[in-house]
């Protein structure tokens, strides 16, 4: 069990007020998480005492910076049980992970007539890069549909996955429904037809234990800022043989071994994919975030979020006119997307904000998902390790007042 009061004390922002006299209730964790003191402190310490460029200087400071930066990579590798830290490529965010794979692996491996299999519940980051690639190469996109309860309908997976399928990319956890997808089963199904399988772990790595070797996926990507780390840092994990065979993503300093005027040779993994001065302090911040989460235990964090989600779904369902999207709490992570009949989600978000409650309203970068549901937007409350039942109660109280204002 987590000591939630103690955890909350680690997050300075949770003790602040949204408006004078109105304490902040932060329920927008799926969009971006808040930062605990150790992460803020580590980044501040780095700038105050250790900063220099990495991989370049022979001076002491550069060596320190490089050790901290590469040490963070090792922490992240252990966190997701990657076989080796050289398979951890630093990026800006998960979006860049999809773009890197689409640009580098995709352009070298996808040909006209090939198929890329996605699902209907994907975030735009796991749609648009493949749309661009498919159009350029004359490949086709296919989609695993979702059922009315927001789970994947796998009944036709056998027809969708064929020898034409070169890539299968899907989310481990929907950022709208919260659905936790059967990743291992899907990876196996993809591999059975020879497809390369990529996992969007932006919503899973921050909230539950993830073991890339157990999942056996080929690529997996996630963002630091959704897991108590800073913005501007993300991770691509890749299978070694694939990463080694792939051409670089961007050219420049640090990604080269030797540069001639007309040609160059590439650096070893993972630096082959890391052109230019990287996000050094952000990587160090993410390494600290990973220590923080691992120390609390990802199983404990997941259990707490399951408890809160279960509580929230029950409490929300008592609001008149509410529709909650996605499967029951037992099958989902800490996300509750909902609508209230007679009030647009944007108005819901604006009015609960006056009570200090931060939720998101809109399509949550999943327009095709909302289109299939026949709605333009949902309101979404999303939880994390520090969320309390009291905060959920406040949300529900506020929703009752929203209905009153709209004369419902």
């Amino acid at each position, binding site marked *: 069990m987590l000591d939630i009061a103690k955890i909350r004390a680690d997050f300075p922002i949770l003790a602040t007020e949204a408006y004078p006299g109105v304490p902040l209730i932060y329920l927008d964790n799926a969009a971006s998480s808040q930062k605990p003191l150790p992460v803020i402190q580590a980044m501040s310490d780095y700038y105050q005492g250790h900063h220099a460029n990495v991989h370049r200087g022979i001076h002491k400071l550069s060596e320190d910076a490089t050790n901290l930066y590469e040490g963070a990579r090792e922490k992240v590798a252990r966190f997701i049980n990657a076989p080796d830290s050289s398979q951890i490529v630093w990026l800006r965010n998960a979006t860049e992970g999809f773009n890197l794979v689409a640009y580098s692996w995709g352009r070298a491996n996808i040909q006209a007539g090939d198929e890329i299999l996605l699902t209907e519940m994907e975030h735009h980051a796991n749609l648009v890069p493949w749309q661009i690639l498919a159009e350029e190469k004359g490949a086709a996109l296919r989609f695993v549909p979702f059922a009315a309860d927001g789970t994947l309908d796998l009944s036709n997976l056998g027809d969708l996955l064929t020898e034409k399928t070169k890539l299968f990319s899907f989310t481990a956890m929907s950022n709208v429904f919260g659905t936790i997808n059967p990743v291992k089963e899907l990876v196996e199904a993809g591999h059975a037809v020879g497809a390369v399988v990529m996992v969007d772990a932006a919503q899973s790595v921050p909230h539950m234990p993830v073991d890339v070797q157990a999942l056996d996926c080929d690529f997996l990507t996630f963002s630091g800022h959704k897991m108590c780390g800073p913005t501007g840092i993300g991770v691509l994990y890749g299978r070694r043989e694939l990463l080694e065979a792939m051409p670089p993503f961007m050219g420049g300093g640090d990604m080269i071994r030797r540069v001639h005027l007309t040609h160059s040779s590439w650096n070893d993994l993972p630096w082959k994919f890391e052109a230019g001065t990287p996000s050094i302090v952000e990587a160090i911040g993410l390494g600290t975030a990973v220590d923080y989460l691992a120390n609390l235990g990802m199983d404990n964090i997941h259990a707490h979020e399951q408890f809160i989600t279960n509580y929230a779904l029950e409490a929300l369902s008592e609001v008149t006119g509410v529709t909650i999207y996605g499967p029951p709490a037992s099958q989902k992570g800490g996300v509750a997307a909902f609508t209230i009949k007679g009030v647009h989600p944007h108005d819901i978000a*604006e009015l609960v904000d006056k009570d200090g409650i931060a939720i998101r309203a809109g399509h949550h970068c999943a327009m095709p998902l*909302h289109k299939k549901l026949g709605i333009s937007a949902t309101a979404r409350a999303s939880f994390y390790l520090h969320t309390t039942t009291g905060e959920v109660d406040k949300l529900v109280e*506020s929703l009752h007042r929203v209905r009153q204002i709209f004369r419902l």
Partner: protein
Amino acid sequence: MLDESFYREQIIDLYESPLNHGELDPHDFSYEEDNPLCGDVIRIDVRLDDEGHVAEAAWSGDGCAISQASASLLTEEIKGKTLAEVKAFPKEELLELIGVPLSMARVKCALLSLKVLKSGAYGIPDKNVMRNQD
């Protein structure tokens, strides 16, 4: 503590009973656009009289209380105005009609109808309608 003045009565009144809601056929111009931030969609149809003044204006679409109230107020306000006046309609005037303080994100909701109206008035090719049909 909800600041109920934010959604002052007029906004809720217009949300419940919008003005000029519907489509005009025939019309002299029509335009539709969405606000990708929140998925609000507004379409505005305008019919001009023989002297080129706005005879009728109607709006349709889906959106939050602010964007819908704005469309009601705007279509009401432009009746009798010339096309040139419509093209020059100042955003400050629409915000004043709405009359409630708006955050930056909500200003976009409030001004969507004006953007749609002006795009129609300037005869910009209607790419968005085609895109929304896919």
